[in-house]
C-alpha cells in the first residue's frame, strides 16, 4: 500500500462519514407494541388505535394510547388453517368503516390436505367481531401450507383486490384462468365478481380474476394519485419483483422468471415473452418482499410517492423511488434493526410503521429524529 492510497482513503472516509451519520440520525424508531406472535398486517382505526393480525390466528387491538390489549378479539373465523406459512393474513377496513364498522380479513382456511385463501368480513365491536361471514374462497382446494398471497387493497369504486398465491406445488396453475391459483382477484364487498372484471367474457376463466401469472404476492398498494396498483411478489431463488398490476394482464409465472428453483434447477429458460408483463423492479438475489406501502405522509416529504417494501430474508425495508410510475432509484433502510420486516404501512400521523416477523414480533414507528 502506498502513501497515496491511505491519503485518498482517509479523504473518502472523511467525506462519507458525515453523510452516513446524517442518514443514521435522520429517523428515530420507537416501539409501539411488542410480544406479538408473527404479526402479519396492520390497520389504523379512526380513533387512533390499530388492529394487528397475528399469523397464528389472532386479531389484536392496540388502544389509541398505544397499549396492546391482552385478550385477542373474539369472533374470528373458526376454520383458520395455521401451519407453516398458513394462518391469518391481512386486515383492511371497509372504505365506509366510519359508518359501518366493517372490516375484511384474509386467511388460510381448511386443512393441511385441502386448503384455500379465504376472505371474510365482519363488524368490529368493543370485544371482537360480529356478523362474521366468509365471502370468498379461492378455488380449488390445494394441499400443503405455502404461498397464499392474502394481501387486500381497496380501489376507489369500493371493490377490492386480493392476491392469491400459487400454493408452491401448483405453479403451472398460475397460467390457468379456470382457477384462482396464482392470481389477483377483484371482488365487490359481498365477495362477488364485478360486472366489469377483465375476464368476465372469457367462458373458460373465473369471473373474479383481475390478473394472472403470479407466484406469491405479499404486498399490494393502490396509488390514489396516479390510479396505479403496485404489487410485490416472491420469486423462487431470485426473481422477486414489483409489478404494475393492470386488469387482464398476465405476469408470466412460471413461464418467464428471473429466478431459479431453490435446488438451483432452472424453472424456465425464458425471461420474457409476448403477452407477459415485465416487472417494474427485479430483485435478484431475492430479498423476500413482504407488505408494502406507498408513502403519502407529511413527516418525510422527500419520501412522498415512493414505495416501501418490507423484506424478510434481507431484513430491511427497501425504498423504491418512483417518478411518473418509473423507478428512479432504490435505497435499503433500517438494516441496523437486523429484523425480518413483515409489513410496512404509512400511518395517518405520517409516520412509517413496521411489523417485525418473529414469535415476539413488534410494531415499530419510524419518525424524524427531531420529531
Amino acid at each position: 500500500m502506498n502513501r497515496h492510497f491511505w491519503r485518498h482513503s482517509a479523504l473518502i472516509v472523511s467525506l462519507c462519514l458525515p453523510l452516513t451519520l446524517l442518514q443514521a440520525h435522520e429517523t428515530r424508531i420507537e416501539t409501539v407494541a411488542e410480544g406479538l406472535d408473527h404479526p402479519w398486517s396492520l390497520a389504523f382505526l379512526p380513533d387512533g388505535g390499530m388492529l394487528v393480525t397475528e399469523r397464528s390466528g389472532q386479531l389484536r387491538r392496540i388502544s389509541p394510547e398505544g397499549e396492546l390489549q391482552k385478550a385477542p378479539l373474539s369472533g374470528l373465523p373458526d376454520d383458520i388453517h395455521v401451519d407453516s406459512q398458513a394462518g391469518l393474513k391481512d386486515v383492511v377496513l371497509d372504505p365506509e368503516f366510519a359508518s359501518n364498522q366493517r372490516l375484511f380479513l384474509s386467511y388460510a382456511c381448511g386443512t393441511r390436505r385441502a386448503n384455500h385463501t379465504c376472505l371474510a368480513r365482519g363488524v368490529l365491536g368493543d370485544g371482537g367481531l360480529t356478523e362474521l361471514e366468509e365471502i370468498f374462497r379461492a378455488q380449488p382446494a390445494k394441499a400443503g401450507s405455502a404461498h397464499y398471497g392474502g394481501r387486500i387493497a381497496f380501489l376507489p369504486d369500493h371493490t377490492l383486490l386480493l392476491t392469491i398465491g400459487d400454493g408452491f406445488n401448483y405453479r403451472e396453475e398460475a397460467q390457468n384462468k379456470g382457477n384462482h391459483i396464482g392470481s389477483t382477484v377483484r371482488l365487490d364487498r359481498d365477495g362477488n365478481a364485478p360486472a366489469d372484471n377483465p375476464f368476465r367474457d372469457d367462458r373458460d376463466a373465473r369471473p373474479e380474476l383481475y390478473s394472472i401469472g403470479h407466484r406469491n404476492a405479499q404486498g399490494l398498494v393502490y396509488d390514489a394519485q396516479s390510479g396505479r396498483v403496485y404489487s410485490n411478489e416472491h420469486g423462487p431463488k431470485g426473481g422477486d419483483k414489483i409489478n404494475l398490476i393492470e386488469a387482464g394482464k398476465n405476469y408470466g409465472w412460471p413461464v418467464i422468471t428471473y429466478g431459479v428453483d431453490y435446488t438451483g434447477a432452472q424453472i424456465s429458460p425464458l425471461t420474457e415473452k409476448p403477452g407477459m408483463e415485465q416487472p417494474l423492479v427485479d430483485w435478484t438475489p431475492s430479498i423476500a418482499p413482504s407488505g408494502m406501502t406507498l408513502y403519502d405522509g407529511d413527516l418525510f416529504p422527500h419520501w412522498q410517492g415512493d414505495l416501501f417494501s418490507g423484506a424478510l430474508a434481507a431484513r430491511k425495508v427497501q425504498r423504491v423511488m418512483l417518478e411518473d410510475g418509473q423507478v428512479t432509484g432504490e435505497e435499503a433502510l433500517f438494516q441496523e434493526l437486523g429484523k425480518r420486516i413483515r409489513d410496512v404501512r404509512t400511518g395517518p400521523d405520517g409516520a412509517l410503521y413496521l411489523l417485525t416477523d418473529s414469535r415476539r414480533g413488534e410494531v415499530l414507528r419510524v419518525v424524524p429524529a427531531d420529531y
Partner: protein
Amino acid sequence: MPPTTPAGRSVVFSQQGGVHPAILGFMAAVILTTLAGTVIQSQFNLAAIQGLGAELSIADWLWVTVQDLGAFSPVYFIIILATFLLAIPAAALAVRLIGSARQGLYMGGTALGLFVALQVIDHLVPMPTLIAATRSLPGMAFMLAAAAAGGWLFAAMTSATRLSQHRNAS
C-alpha cells in the same frame, strides 16, 4: 489414508493399486443416478413450461439441461450420496438374508431409499416439494428409475465374477 486390515492390506486399494469394486461400484452408482436424475428433472420442468404454450427451441432444452448439470447436480449428488450410503448397505443386508434376486434387491433398495429420502426432505424443508419434478407421479417414477439404475450398476460392478476377478488380480 484408506482404512487397512490388521495384516496391513488396504481394503480400498489392492496391492496393485486397483480400487475395490464395492467402492468403485458405489461411486459409479451415485454418479449415474445424479446425472440421470438431473437430466430427467430438467426434461420434466421444461415439458411443464412447454405445456403452458411456451415455444422452446432445442437450444433452450440443451441450455437448461447443461445449466442444471452445473447448478442442480451438486445438490442432488449430496442427496444421492447420503441416500445410497444407507440404501446400498441395507440392500446388501437384504441380499445376504434372502440369498437371491440380488440385482432386484439393489435396484429396489436404491429406488426405495430415494423415495424415503425425498419424503423426509420434503417434510423437513419449508417448501412442500424440494424437487419440482417429483410433484407428479411420472416425474417421481422416472427419478426413482434413475436410482434403480444406480442400484443395478452397483450390483453389476460388485457381482461374484467381478469380485473374484478383483481377488485374483490382487
